[in-house]
């Protein structure tokens, strides 16, 4: 059996990082489209007070779309923050602590946002 770890690890053709690269772009396009959808609704005629603002997110399709975008945002931010920690924080223990804290932060914020969405 050929050795495929340590210095003998095969580093071509294994798609290292491809999934992160692709998911960051797919989630980005989703968020950009959501931004357009939101801008179009905000720019509709009429004064923008509480009723119209809350009304935008009251529609069920908008809730589903917002939920998908919140998850996309958390995933996108996870890939980006992980890149930052990997680039600047070298001690493995510290990096692990920061990565776990990032996940806690993102999952917590996403849970809060989803709660706001579905009690509306």
């Amino acid at each position, binding site marked *: 059996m050929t050795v495929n770890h340590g210095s003998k690890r095969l580093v071509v053709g294994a798609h290292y990082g491809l999934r992160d690269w692709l998911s960051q772009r797919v989630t980005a*396009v989703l968020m*950009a489209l959501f931004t357009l959808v939101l801008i179009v609704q905000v720019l509709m005629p009429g004064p923008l007070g*509480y009723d119209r*603002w809350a009304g935008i997110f009251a529609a069920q399709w908008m809730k589903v779309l917002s939920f998908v975008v919140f998850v996309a945002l958390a995933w996108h*931010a996870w890939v980006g*923050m992980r890149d930052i920690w990997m680039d600047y924080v070298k001690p493995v223990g510290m990096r692990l602590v920061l990565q776990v804290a990032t996940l806690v*932060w*993102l999952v917590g914020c996403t849970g809060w946002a989803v709660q706001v969405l579905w009690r509306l």
Partner: protein
Amino acid sequence: MPEMTRARPGTMRLIDAVKYRLPLAGVVSILHRASGLLMFVLLPFIVWLFDTSISSEISYESFTAAFVVGLGVVPGWGVKLVVLALIWAFLHHLIAGVRHVWMDATHSVSKAQGQSSAVITLAASVLLTVALGAKLFGLY
């Protein structure tokens, strides 16, 4: 040879990195990272804005009041400044992201295009921030 060992540059540190003149594409790149980090750090504040603006008419009142009387120890203009920073971060991150996806999709990786699209990214995000910031601070 010990002298040659001493002359070797070794690992690049931040103090070495700042000695290089960064091209505009590099400025866009580091600001892309900085703006993403800023939005990540302020994410609970963003969710708070979403929560108070949408949950009820009473919470909507406290949402609008935050921009006038402030939030805790932060005065109203301080809240506006933080929101202005978030507006810039969002715009820069979005436009730089579109530039990124566009480069990925079209394989346009020439030096000239990198430079010109960097100028467009920086100018568009700053101009839009100024326009929205003027609205935020009640200039029109």
